[in-house]
């Protein structure tokens, strides 16, 4: 069972990630996957279902519940010439592996004077919206985007879910991929999709009045907000950051220089967030082109609540995004 499904048929985000892993496993014997419950259970979000049967326990490895240990093992394997894909169940658990990621994976190339590369890929789920309460609903990808020496990706579209992994594995440096939990069930077709880069932000909707900047789970809420704005005659441009580190500042500035207004949508908390970084870059690079203060729509600065209505209220939603966009237009 090594043939890949036709790309034009209906596919979910979950299946797109799975196909990306299968393609990598089939194409390169150095690639293997490890993480908690990825084998027999099929993955906490069922991404790796069926892969154990197809590739066997040598290449689909269930690990003990020790993030520090298995991320560290992944770093060792990468140093040793393998191409490991490590799955961390959710971003909150990755905090147990912070030392491995920040102190080892991100620095070894530098510390060895370029003698060692760490071609490691770490995938993890991020974000809120599934009523998993305060300990499993974080959006901490902005923290990782702070660290030099790693790349941070946030695939939001099916195409990026399907093709970013190959580019990440081809990169000689550690790459972290954040998959938003609300996207796994999203479906669509992948006709005409192909290899993608992991350098650039993409304009997902063109507009001339205001630039809305989003990534991951907030991309589709932001596109919905743009639709609401269009009904009021406001043409919003929507940028999908895709790559959170290094940030594609050029695409952001080019758009803001045109629209003269920016709204940043980030499911992370506002203080010290990725949205703060994007806002600062706009101020640094496009100050003289601005017609309004930069607006941000972020999560409420509270532990993410469990009850559905409170969880929804705590997260960025389309009406709030549209209202922020209108504020930049003085409307």
């Amino acid at each position, binding site marked *: 069972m090594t043939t890949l499904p036709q790309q034009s048929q209906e596919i979910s985000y979950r299946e797109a990630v799975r196909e990306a892993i299968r393609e990598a496993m089939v194409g390169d014997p150095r690639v293997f996957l490890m993480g908690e419950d990825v084998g027999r259970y099929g993955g906490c979000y069922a991404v790796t279902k069926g892969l154990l049967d197809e590739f066997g326990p040598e290449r689909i490895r269930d690990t003990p519940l020790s993030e520090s240990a298995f991320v560290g093992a992944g770093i060792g394997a990468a140093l040793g010439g393998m191409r490991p894909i490590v799955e961390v169940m959710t971003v909150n658990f990755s905090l147990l592996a912070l030392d491995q990621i920040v102190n080892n994976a991100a620095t070894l190339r530098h510390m060895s004077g370029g003698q060692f590369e760490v071609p490691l890929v770490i995938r993890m789920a991020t974000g809120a919206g599934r009523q998993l309460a305060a300990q499993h609903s974080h959006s901490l990808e902005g923290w990782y985007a702070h660290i030099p020496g790693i790349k941070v990706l946030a695939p939001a579209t099916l195409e990026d879910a399907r093709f970013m992994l190959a580019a990440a594995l081809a990169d000689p440096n550690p790459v972290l991929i954040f998959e938003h939990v609300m996207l796994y069930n999203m479906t669509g077709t992948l006709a005409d999709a192909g290899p993608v880069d992991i350098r650039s932000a993409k304009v997902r909707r063109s507009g001339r009045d205001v630039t809305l900047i989003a990534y991951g789970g907030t991309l589709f809420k932001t596109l919905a907000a743009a639709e609401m704005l269009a009904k009021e005659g406001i043409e919003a441009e929507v940028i999908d950051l895709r790559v959170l580190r290094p940030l594609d500042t050029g695409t952001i500035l080019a758009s803001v220089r045109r629209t003269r207004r920016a709204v940043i949508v980030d499911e992370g908390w506002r203080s010290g967030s990725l949205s703060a970084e994007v806002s600062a870059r706009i101020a640094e690079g496009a100050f003289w*082109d601005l017609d309004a203060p930069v607006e941000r729509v972020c999560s409420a600065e509270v532990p993410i609540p469990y009850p559905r209505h409170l969880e929804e209220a705590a997260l960025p939603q389309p009406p709030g995004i549209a209202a922020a966009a209108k504020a930049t*237009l*003085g409307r």
Partner: protein
Amino acid sequence: MAEFRMPSLGADMVAGTLVEWLRRPGDRVRRGDIVAVVETQKGAIEIEIFQDGVIERFLVDVGATVPVGTPLALIAGAVAPAAPAPPPVRPEAVVQAPAPPRMPLPGPGAGRPLASPAARRMAEQFGVDLRALRGSGPGSAIVSADVEGAAKAPRRFDPAEMRRAIGAAMARSKREIPHYYLSTTIDITATQQWMEARNAERPPPQRLLLAAPLLKAVAIALRGSRELNGYYTERGFEPSPAIHLGVAIAIRGGGLMAPAIHDVNNLGIDELMAKLRDLGMRARSGGLRSSELSDSTITVTSLGERGSEAVFGIIYPPQVALVGLGKPTERPAVLDGKVVPRRTIVATLSADHRVSDGHRGAIFLSEMDRLLQAPEQL
């Protein structure tokens, strides 16, 4: 559904260029709202709408030059002005998502207008004075679009174009309108004294200029002379119940405009003076509204202190009369059998013989004279 059309901003206008939409599809508009800017031979003019409704969609793109009367936009829920009046439609409340609380915009720094960085840079480039602009951005801040609008108007003004437009209108007037002319010397000593007494108690910005009582006298005198106030069209003469005085204003760099002051007969003298000052400023800076350019019912041309003794003007079609006011001058006059110096002005009337005769014109001028002898009643 009604159509919002390219208005005629004068007999000489055949087409206009849409420079900018100031409102957007989906916006609710009310009669009198400014919705667009149109470039004419007279410069950039702000165009008002004459229906209440919601802008359904635009029919003409920015930059397009279209003939007068071309539909520019569709207005939903609007009633064409000519249709019989239906019961008023109450606009439904537009439900909007509540905006999240946000930081209040800071006020401008000491003496600095609230303007965006982009607006500041553009103002610097184009040499536009930010203090003269009204902001349309967040917190009424001046944004780049406001500066662009202000920068466009003077740059686009072409004195040669305006000269051609004036020429076309005046040639048509002389071709079609059988003018007759009357002239009378009016003693304005009483008016002058009344005005000086009044001004003595006031700071300069609130003082009257002679133009105010003169215009007021013209407007009141017109109440009894319907044949001088209105329009001559293919259907013949239509008197106007309202009295909108077109005030001829010389433009720096050459040219002439005669924007209207509306309902002058109903304005208090100070109100009229304020409007006169405002109109002069806007005529020179390019902020006139479409109705001000298109609906004068008669024109007054006043040469002022540096003018000649008398002016016999050419009627601006489709109007049917023009009042000329010469330079106020000390002249010898006979009063109670003695020659005494009096302050006088020569008032003239050019009128359309298709509509009125010299007899009517003479009544009008004497009525003006009578009114100016009792200026406190103006």
